[in-house]
């Protein structure tokens, strides 16, 4: 527990010690605004909700989150500091968790900084605040899912670019697994039941469900399980690399 907390604090501070945090937050806020107001037709829709805002989050995270997660382990390997980290009296699980939670906290901070959107709709109309809260919860959970995938893949390599590309590809598959592009691949030969299962893996669908204001326990369990699975895989990857 000590170890997780110490690593969490160090990692979170590390974002703000470098320009990374500021660049990320500025770009995140800028791009969400563009998407919401221009592509999402926020004003033209004439509705006091944040649907236009949230609907772009899966696509935004697809590129921004791997940019954040790529450094988690690859950078440690590159700098050699992983040798220090793994010889401290901290369990590997604590290290994996500490790093992930710090990255997750950071994305949540970035997400929280979009609060002026909420203020805007509250000023312009009378939005359903429950739905907006659900949207934020869903968005944070989805960011956690992307981060867990990225963290695991980052542990595979010392090259951050490789980690980034791998993460984008895998995250893309998870995002679109409910879309025809993936389902068509299975449609020719796989049984209907399996196609349904694949579709169930879609971040997009799960997130949409939550963002519509229905926080279904199954969707929560889905994201938590997914994060748990990838973090466990992350741990295995680091352990296996130790044994060579």
């Amino acid at each position, binding site marked *: 527990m000590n170890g997780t*907390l110490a690593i969490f*604090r160090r990692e979170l*501070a*590390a974002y703000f010690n470098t320009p990374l945090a500021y660049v990320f937050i500025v770009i995140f806020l800028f791009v969400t605004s563009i998407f919401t107001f221009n592509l999402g037709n926020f004003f033209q829709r004439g509705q006091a909700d944040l649907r236009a805002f949230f609907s772009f989050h899966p696509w935004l995270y697809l590129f921004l989150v791997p940019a954040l997660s790529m450094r988690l382990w690859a950078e440690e390997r590159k*700098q050699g500091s992983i040798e220090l980290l793994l*010889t401290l*009296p901290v369990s590997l699980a604590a290290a994996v968790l500490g790093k992930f939670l710090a990255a997750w906290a950071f994305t949540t901070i970035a997400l929280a900084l979009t609060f002026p959107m909420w203020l805007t709709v509250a000023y312009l109309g009378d939005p359903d605040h429950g739905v907006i809260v659900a949207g934020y919860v869903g968005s944070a959970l989805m960011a956690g899912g992307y981060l867990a995938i990225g963290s695991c893949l980052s542990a595979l390599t010392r090259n951050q670019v490789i980690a980034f590309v791998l993460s984008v590809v895998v995250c893309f598959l998870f995002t679109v697994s409910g879309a025809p592009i993936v389902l068509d691949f299975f449609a020719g030969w796989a049984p209907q039941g399996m196609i349904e299962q694949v579709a169930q893996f879609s971040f997009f669908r799960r997130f949409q469900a939550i963002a519509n204001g229905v926080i279904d326990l199954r969707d929560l369990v889905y994201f938590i399980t997914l994060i748990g699975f990838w973090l466990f895989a992350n741990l295995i990857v680091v352990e296996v690399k*130790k*044994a*060579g």
Partner: protein
Amino acid sequence: MQAKIEVDGLVRRFGPLTAVDDVTFQVTQGEVLGFLGPNGAGKSTTMKMITGYLTPSAGQVRVCGFDVVQEPLSAKALIGYLPEGAPAYPDMTPASFLAFCARTRGLAAETARQRIAQAVDTVAIGDVLEQSIDTLSKGYKRRVGLAQAILHDPPVLILDEPTDGLDPNQKHEVRTLIANMATEKAIIISTHILEEVDAVCTRAMIIDKGRMVADGTPEMLQARSPGHNAVVVRTSADGAEAALFELADVARVETLAAGTYRIYPRAGRQPLAAVAELARRRGWSIDHLAVEAGRLDEVFRQITGGGRRHAA
């Protein structure tokens, strides 16, 4: 007394390469063991297994009785480790870095403050505490790494090339530091600077191609040198070289400079008395006469082949 570090049949393979091949040794408190060996001999790999960074392919390591694989946290808590190249987090300052290490080691706030102050003082990094590690010179980085290793006053210290990249004064300081800690700790250092072995180690081990090829006190290793007990003599007398070669215990005579000779003894012999007697009888005037202990680098080259391995 129970050994602080027990290494038993340690093996590490990287694919087809066996980097460490069945290494067994023990280190007790008060010992400073120097790992010697050519680059790629397996020194660092052995250290990485002792500290739990790499998992051994076979064999086991116990630190103060704790198996590094079975009880990693207990073992790691007792080890101070300076990895090769002294890696740290470049975005941190030495102050925040040491605070981080203290927290992961579970030191209480007050203890941590004292231990950090002490470590900072010991390695003399007080003037760069608030500078990011990224901007520090190689010598300072190495000292930050050392501070991190001694922070929790561990009974076992593993230092991979602790003086690499330091200037002669800093080298001397680090050696003094190691010597001062030696009585209460079990210490392993790796080095390729042979004078360092003489300066700080109570025991030296030569590793070549993953195998331990020599183990003993620096004096014992020196005694294996062909130059052990060699006599260096400087005289202006004519015909000295031929006369010296005639002596019974002399294997060969090397001319170092005009009138200066190094007289190599036959194995186990000591030709000093014979040389002195000869000089007295012939009435040579002697400017210099000294016995040599032997040179570690000769032993090192002899044992590890020096890149000119004789075909078996």
